[in-house]
């Protein structure tokens, strides 16, 4: 199921005889993860009934709500994930690695900035960007450029910018979102620029890994390139494989997000939220839990605008697109777990700092 379940044993060198055992253990862990998720989902449905002693109809209604939210997130995300997969498939077939090497700066800071700028140009949201970045890493994209693109694109792509404008106009929230997202994405990317691809990426994603093994097993077919329709077919198959890879993570992410939505009382969260620091924390948690598409989160943020501080709205709009339950699970299909941890923590800390800084600046 998942290529890298969160609780599997650390990947150490194993002798050939131990391999089947590890494989079995992994499979067992995958299944237990699946069952665990289902139990969690059930728990979320039964939670209220257990505490309030409500009837069976109520339980069924909760189950219905859970399924509706899960399918809502999934159906909503499918077109965007598909678009990302198709772009990824086309890159896989038509973009040459040498071409990427020539046009993308290798210098760490420039590479990070280039990734951030790619994020402003390409209209991809958080579901679509993951397969694209994964494919580009396979083509030898520098780690920092990819991370800047991955984090920046959902928040400041043209569609998200437009919806932010629609919701907030050219105000502080509009500019704050663009500037903070860009700065945070590129600075996190810069932090990663020292890392080796093998330290950060899953083996299946890593380009150098491919070079090492593909050179032996699969030399480029000699002779002329295959005809166009065959290459298109190939691109679509690559896209299909990418779609399946990522859809698995998307489904697990949607299940978790729907569980969180059924379980965590939003009204309680929102009633807590005043004060320059608390409000930021509340909306950051909410952004993570809600897992809504980054192209429209501005409209939802607008609904909070009356009861929450500007800094907290800003944190919501900066952090939510970079990291939420759904995208965290999808990151697990690209990066090693430790990297995913950093990719949650660093944006979290920086977004909170940005929001709190904004609030205090206005209050003093």
């Amino acid at each position: 199921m998942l290529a890298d379940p969160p609780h599997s044993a650390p990947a150490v060198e194993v002798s050939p005889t131990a391999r089947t055992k590890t494989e079995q253990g992994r499979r067992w862990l995958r299944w237990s993860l699946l069952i665990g998720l289902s139990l969690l989902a059930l728990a979320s449905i039964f939670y209220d009934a257990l505490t309030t002693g409500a009837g069976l109809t109520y339980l069924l209604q909760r189950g219905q709500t859970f399924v509706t939210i899960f399918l809502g997130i999934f159906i909503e995300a499918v077109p965007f994930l598909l678009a990302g997969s198709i772009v990824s498939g086309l890159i896989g077939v038509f973009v040459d690695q040498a071409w990427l090497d020539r046009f993308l700066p290798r210098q760490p800071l420039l590479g990070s900035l280039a990734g951030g700028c790619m994020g402003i140009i390409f209209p991809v949201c958080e579901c679509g960007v993951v397969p694209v970045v994964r494919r580009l890493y396979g083509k030898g994209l520098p780690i920092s450029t990819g991370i800047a693109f991955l984090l920046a694109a959902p928040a400041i792509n043209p569609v998200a910018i437009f919806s932010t404008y629609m919701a907030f106009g050219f105000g502080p929230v509009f500019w704050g979102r663009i500037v903070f997202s860009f700065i945070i994405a590129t600075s996190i990317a810069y932090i990663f620029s020292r890392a080796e691809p093998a330290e950060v990426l899953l083996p299946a994603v890593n380009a150098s890994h491919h070079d090492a093994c593909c050179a032996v097993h699969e030399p480029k077919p000699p002779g002329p390139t295959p005809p166009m329709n065959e290459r298109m077919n190939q691109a679509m198959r690559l896209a299909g494989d990418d779609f399946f890879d990522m859809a698995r993570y998307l489904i697990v992410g949607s299940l978790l997000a729907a569980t969180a939505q059924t379980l965590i009382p939003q009204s309680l969260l929102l009633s807590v939220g005043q004060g320059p620091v608390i409000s930021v924390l509340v909306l950051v948690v909410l952004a993570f839990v809600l897992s809504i598409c980054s192209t429209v989160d501005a409209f939802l943020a607008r609904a909070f605008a009356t009861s929450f501080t500007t800094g907290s709205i800003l944190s919501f709009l900066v952090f939510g697109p970079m990291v939420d339950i759904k995208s965290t699970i999808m990151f697990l299909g690209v990066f090693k777990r430790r990297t995913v941890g950093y990719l949650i923590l660093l944006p979290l800390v920086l977004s909170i700092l940005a929001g709190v800084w904004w609030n205090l600046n206005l209050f003093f």
Partner: protein
Amino acid sequence: MSHYLARPRIQTAVKGLLLFGLALFLYSRLMNGTILFYINQNFVPYTMLAIVGLLIMAISYRPSERKAANEPAHAEPHGHDDGHSHATDTGTHEHSHDHSHALTVSGLLLLLLPMVLGVLVPPQPLGASAMANREVSMSLQTSSLPAAVQAAANKGASERNVLDWLQTFAGAQDPARDFAGQPVKVVGFVFRDKRFGAEQFMVARYVVSCCVADANMAGMVVRWPKAAALPADQWVEVHGVLEPGKLGSEQLPVLAAQSVTNVEVPSQPYLYP
């Protein structure tokens, strides 16, 4: 089973069928209109595009002579520690040994989950019970977009839905009194919580900007002598006039109902901001 699934040709067939099945699932939701129970109407065109895209991808998995001829060479084990590393797509030159591209049984079940849940659980729009842990908005205040407030104000009183009314209230100085006496005709479902008196209920709609994950409730407080007889989640059409009123200690316009009739669930149950 997993042994059979590991065969390249089975893999290809299963993937093609999965894509086709997903396209069919989305198409059926589109055709019977229940897609609107899940996402905002404005996103439906993307779903249509997705169906086309899924079908094109599904077709690319069709078996072809050329690839079948290549299969033995590609299907040889590459010496990876992954048991099914050779069970992968044969049509690609650079990724064909990729471990993660092979579908396992659990992966297949997971991918089937949305379709299975969608078929087993009859589609229904979010109901009152979904509100247990969400925010109810009875006064949108300044949170509404100026353009939306303007658009709502331009509508005739009888054409305004629940959200239009809330947006109209948002543009007023003293909404509780400013609109007293105006006639109202709105459709929504019955919702109530602890704050509501015996003769009160809320005629409510969910407002969905993207998908149901971001749903928020918008509603108007209704005064109706027989309110207690109305079960939660019942869809009703309310005729009445506005009057200044209270919910708990909050001053707000209350809809004094002249008639409350039960209606069917509308084909478009949510409102869009």
